[in-house]
């Protein structure tokens, strides 16, 4: 165990105590009314963690971000250069900036961003796997630290401050997972049959959605569908003559969201007939530059969101 390295300075060989606290955490979590997912995903794994892991992971996460960035650029080369005509090259920053922002950003900040985006976007976004894992580890470590502080008779003021910090991080993580679960419950059939959406789920969410679909299907079948005429028994189709699944709720991608621009977006051609924006109607292309706050239709900007050029607020 590398706890001795931890900056909170707690003892090295508290194996037993540590196990006990994990058990306690498990127990409390199981008792509290929490989603299936959280129980599934409570991992008790490596024993070597320290606070520095945070920064290391942030840098490790950087490579992935860069890959994404390069992918994006490559794709851009293949696509029509028409869109690039106005102000090419201007619309994004270098990977160096990414690095700068990443090392100066804490996981809480990243989690907050993920939470806001997830809350505001109509469709399900890619699961922030590494981030959630890091956040969980840090929260668990902080829980242990706070317990230790309480036992060792630390200044109650300090303990309560640490507890507040912990509560804030926990709230963000829980709310993030719950917002996703809400979306999954709402659009489960749509997500399940669409590969892109399905790949955005974590393993736990996948098993959740499977059992959820099973239960709903069984329930609807038993209560209603089996009593309907034969042609109307499908759970996804209105009747047997429907060619496609026309009873599957899909996310409404034409909803409007409020977005804050972090890196300049590609100039986007929005619609042909109506282009006038109230505050800004210069030309047919619409481009967001850093610092811009806009109300936008979600659909044309979904890639910009996933690429991290804009944040929803």
């Amino acid at each position, binding site marked *: 165990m590398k706890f001795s390295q931890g900056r909170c300075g707690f003892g090295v060989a508290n194996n037993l105590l540590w196990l006990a606290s994990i058990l306690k955490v498990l127990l409390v979590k199981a008792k509290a009314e929490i989603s299936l997912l959280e129980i599934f995903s409570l991992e008790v794994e490596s024993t070597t963690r320290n606070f520095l892991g945070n920064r290391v992971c942030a840098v490790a996460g950087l490579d992935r971000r860069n890959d994404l960035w390069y992918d994006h650029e490559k794709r851009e080369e293949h696509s029509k250069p028409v869109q690039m005509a106005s102000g090419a090259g201007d619309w994004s920053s270098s990977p160096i900036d990414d690095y700068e922002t990443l090392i100066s950003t804490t996981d809480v900040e990243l989690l907050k961003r993920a939470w806001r985006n997830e809350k505001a976007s109509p469709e399900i976004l890619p699961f922030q796997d590494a981030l959630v894992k890091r956040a969980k580890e840090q929260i668990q470590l902080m829980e242990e630290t706070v317990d230790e502080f309480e036992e060792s008779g630390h200044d109650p003021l300090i303990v309560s401050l640490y507890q507040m910090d912990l509560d804030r991080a926990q709230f963000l993580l829980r709310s993030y997972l719950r917002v996703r679960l809400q979306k999954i419950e709402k659009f489960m059939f749509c997500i399940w049959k669409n590969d892109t959406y399905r790949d955005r789920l974590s393993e736990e969410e996948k098993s959740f959605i499977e059992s959820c679909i099973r239960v709903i299907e069984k329930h609807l079948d038993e209560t209603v569908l089996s009593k309907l005429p034969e042609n109307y028994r499908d759970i996804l189709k209105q009747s047997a003559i429907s060619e496609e699944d026309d009873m599957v709720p899909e996310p409404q991608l034409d909803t*409007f969201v409020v977005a804050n621009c972090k890196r300049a977006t590609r100039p986007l051609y929005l619609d042909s007939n109506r282009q006038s924006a*109230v505050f800004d109607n210069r030309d047919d292309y619409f481009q967001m530059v850093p610092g811009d706050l806009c109300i936008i239709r979600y659909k044309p900007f979904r890639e910009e969101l996933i690429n991290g050029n804009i944040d929803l607020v």
Partner: protein
Amino acid sequence: MAGQSDPHVSLFSAEEVEFIAEDEMVEIVPNMTIERLNFISGDFGPFLPLTVNQVPLWLAVALKKRGKCAIRPPHWMSVENLTKVLEEERDSQGAFQALPFHYVEISRLLFDHAREDIPDIYLVRSLIEDIRDVRLHKVETSLEKFSGTSAVKIPNLSAMEVNIIRPFVGRALQAFYKHDNPEKIPDIDRVSSGQSRVANSEPPRRPLRR
């Protein structure tokens, strides 16, 4: 359920907007020594009496509640600056003046918890209220001129103002868009009735026109 707001009323509840604002940094002057705090959200301190420290607002408020520090009001909260902003806000009809994104929440928290740290608190408070009213009025009048589009720039609008107009503007724009492109959006009524049948926790969505 960890403070989950009902997503159908408004995307973010007022509490959630305040939660976000509590991460903004403010300056405090502690009156006691506190060792360095290694939080998940970052490292702060060490705090020494009478030295200025940058901390997030929630920490400042927590320390202030226990009487361990004085909060320095941010520069934009000075009477001179606010008077200037209010004048410019009244003069320019279309545009909004630059204020911190969370100015409403920050000033509210400081008024509630750090009254004695703000010089001329009554003046400052009424100035901020006036600014807020002028801006909200401006938002309302510009909404009257609204037309269908896919993107609207709203420079300098604050978090609270965005949150207030979001449900209305979002639906209005969606309705505009729907009427402009009748073929693109499936009939909302049909979708929502299908939805209320499959996911029965969902109340049928109100049709956009009304």
